């Protein structure tokens, strides 16, 4: 296989690697070449970004009232008794 041609397995790896660390010049070219020809990896590239966005918003969301509320009176009493 040509050295610049990536497999989808490798390309999808680079897509996620790219969202965390800087890719080398060669890796960038390889990835660009691959995604310009491969619909599956192009879709994955988009999905990877969507996932980043969703996870960030979902996990970092600081709206405690947006989550299901649970009453825990035992906990309340225990904390108060220890004060």
């Amino acid at each position, binding site marked *: 296989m040509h050295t610049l041609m990536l497999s989808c397995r490798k390309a999808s790896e680079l897509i996620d690697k790219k969202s*965390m660390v800087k890719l080398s010049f060669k890796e960038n070219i390889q990835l660009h070449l691959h995604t310009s020809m491969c619909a599956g990896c192009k*879709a994955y590239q988009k999905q990877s970004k969507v*996932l980043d966005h*969703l*996870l960030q918003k*979902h*996990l970092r969301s600081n709206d*405690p009232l947006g989550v299901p509320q*649970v009453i825990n009176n035992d906990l*309340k009493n225990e904390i108060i008794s220890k004060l």
Partner: protein
Amino acid sequence: MDSSNLTSVIKHWVELYSDSMYSWAFYKTSNKEVSEDLVQDTFMVAVQTFDTFKRKSDPKTWLFAILNHKIYDHYRKNFRSPILIENASLQNLFDSNGSWTPEEKPQLWGDDTEHLLDDTEFQKTLKLCIGRLPENWSMAIHFKYLDERNSEQICQELGIATTNLWQILHRAKLQLRKCLELNWFKK
């Protein structure tokens, strides 16, 4: 402030906020005992560091900042250096040449992904899919997205190499993608 006054202030806060704090911790950790400990610890810290609390700031904001720090600490302490095992559910994604197998090839999700999180049903699905990840993968995900820390900081704190971290996150994302596709986008 004398100690009886302090106690009554904190007691009032416990009455007001402990349920929503517990709910939040439970939402983040999915574990009752852990969540109870985290909320208790938060109030202990609040008592000890009450002097640093500025009266003008909102007590709820302050308490949740401590709690979020505790939640993060919990993830850090419990992270065991992961061994990368090929997860069974990822085995059939690629064929022997490393190409997507026809049934696993990613299909576009459509353009309206911006408002997905407004849908509580989608939130449930996402949470379900995160819950199905192997424990260490899920922890790595929480670490990466829980706050503003960058990759180097995360690796340093977890004692793993950067390569290891992005490989875990990569596998986690492949699995999440598949799970979301099956349970949401194809439904």
